[in-house]
């Protein structure tokens, strides 16, 4: 029952090519310590999940990596260079989609490029391509309120992909869509990680989701936030999308994570 520290399952040597590295980051809101001396590496070309109960500071950490929040101390390096704010090397996918309701799908997807000063015809050509990639062709001239939740998040994803950043930061991107859409998204995400040579950092509170999509899972504990352990599932990564959920290793990892987190859930 009180198995608070299960032995790490299926851990392999961490790869040496690190895309994002968080060094001794602390973040205080007044007297509240949201993050305390947190150190974590994100390997290039892989998907790392930040998993933990609510209030564990996973979104805070993601926003610090994005440059949207300044850490109280410590620093974040992208490919070895410390960051000072948002940069062209990172793109963000928002939990509530953060689409412009007065703009069409096309303009929303091209909006990141628009802010970078890319010419209209060029950015729309790029946006068209990614709208197509996420399966929304035909909806270019629809407005967000005409789309379902899942389709809106595809727009958010296409916007993040179209700026061609090395690092994709996803803040609980599937939490506002329904269960079936979420499953489809998770499968699509596996393909995306495989095809695009990008580093994904994925915040979630769903253990199953984290284990299903991740190359590496960082389990965070709350108040103040710290890394409990880093798990690297290896056995089922190359299996087909449908058989992962039945893989014994997948089920074991899900169980172990729950065992170590349950005492922190109030």
């Amino acid at each position, binding site marked *: 029952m009180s198995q608070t520290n299960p032995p790490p399952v299926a851990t392999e040597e961490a790869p040496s090519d690190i895309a994002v590295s968080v060094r001794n980051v602390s973040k205080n809101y007044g007297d509240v310590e949201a993050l305390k001396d947190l150190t974590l590496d994100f390997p290039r070309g892989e998907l790392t999940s930040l998993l933990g109960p609510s209030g564990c500071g996973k979104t805070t950490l993601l926003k610090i990596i994005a*440059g*949207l929040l300044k850490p109280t101390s410590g620093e974040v390096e992208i490919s070895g260079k410390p960051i000072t704010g948002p*940069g*062209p090397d990172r793109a963000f996918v928002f*939990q509530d989609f953060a689409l*412009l*309701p*007065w703009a069409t799908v096309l303009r929303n997807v091209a909006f990141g490029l628009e*802010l970078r000063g890319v010419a209209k015809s060029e950015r729309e050509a790029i946006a068209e391509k990614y709208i197509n990639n996420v399966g929304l062709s035909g909806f270019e001239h629809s407005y967000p309120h005409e789309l379902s939740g899942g389709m809106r998040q595809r727009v958010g994803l296409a916007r993040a992909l179209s*700026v061609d950043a090395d690092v994709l930061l996803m803040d609980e991107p599937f939490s506002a869509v329904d269960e079936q859409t979420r499953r489809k998204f998770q499968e699509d995400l596996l393909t995306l990680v495989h095809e695009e040579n990008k580093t994904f950092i994925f915040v979630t509170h769903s253990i199953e989701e984290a284990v299903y999509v991740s190359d590496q899972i960082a389990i965070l504990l709350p108040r103040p936030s710290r890394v409990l352990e880093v798990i690297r599932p290896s056995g089922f990564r190359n299996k087909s999308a449908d058989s992962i959920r039945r893989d014994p290793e997948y089920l074991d990892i899900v169980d172990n994570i729950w065992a170590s987190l349950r005492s922190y859930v109030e």
Partner: protein
Amino acid sequence: MLNRPNLLKLLSAVIVFGSWEIAGRVPVSYSFPTFVDSMQALAVLAWEGTLFTAYVETLKPLAVGVGISTVLGISLGLWIGLSKFFDWLVSPIFVVMQAAPLAALIPLLVMAYGIGLTSKVFVVCIMAMPVIVLNTAGAVRHTPESMKEMCNSFLGTRLDMLIKIIIPAASPLIFSGLRLGVSAGFIGAILSELKITPTGVGDIITYSRSIADYPSMYAAIFSIILLAVLFLNLLERTEKTLFKGNDLGYVSD
């Protein structure tokens, strides 16, 4: 043309004008003319050209006042919404302005600025500006946080944030402030003509009342209401063409 909404509009016009006609025929009061009499008087005023010369007079303080209130009101509102310090410094003025009984302030305005155009423009501005300023400021403060973060994370500048996020997101409330402000401005324009010097439409109203030509008086009142309604409709159309999709709410709703 005669679809359901238009039919309903026609029906409500028939009901309102019909009851006006009946009330005039009863008569509710000796000083209450029938609808048909009022419309005849309106036609006569228009035919003689009195109505148009009157509107040239009335529209001067109205147009200048509404113009100043719109431009200055929206800019001040944006500034108040963006800066806490400026909010502390300026917004009490507009709260007081909104609460102040205007008719009581008119003698002060006349003492300070005389009986000319300036005083009338002031009256229009005092009526129209506060709601425009306060609505704009409130809307700016409530720009969805994730949209601002989105703009930042995709490397938008502060100007991008203002022009591409904050103003469009605030536009429904800015426009509702404009609608309220403009209709208050119409009230202000007529009030100034009744309280300061009788010119324009206010003159027609005052003069017709003094010679007991009630149909002309109601014709003048009717025409100003009609103008205000038409102008508000124009504003609504402008908003719909400028910010298509915005009227159906935010996606996160």
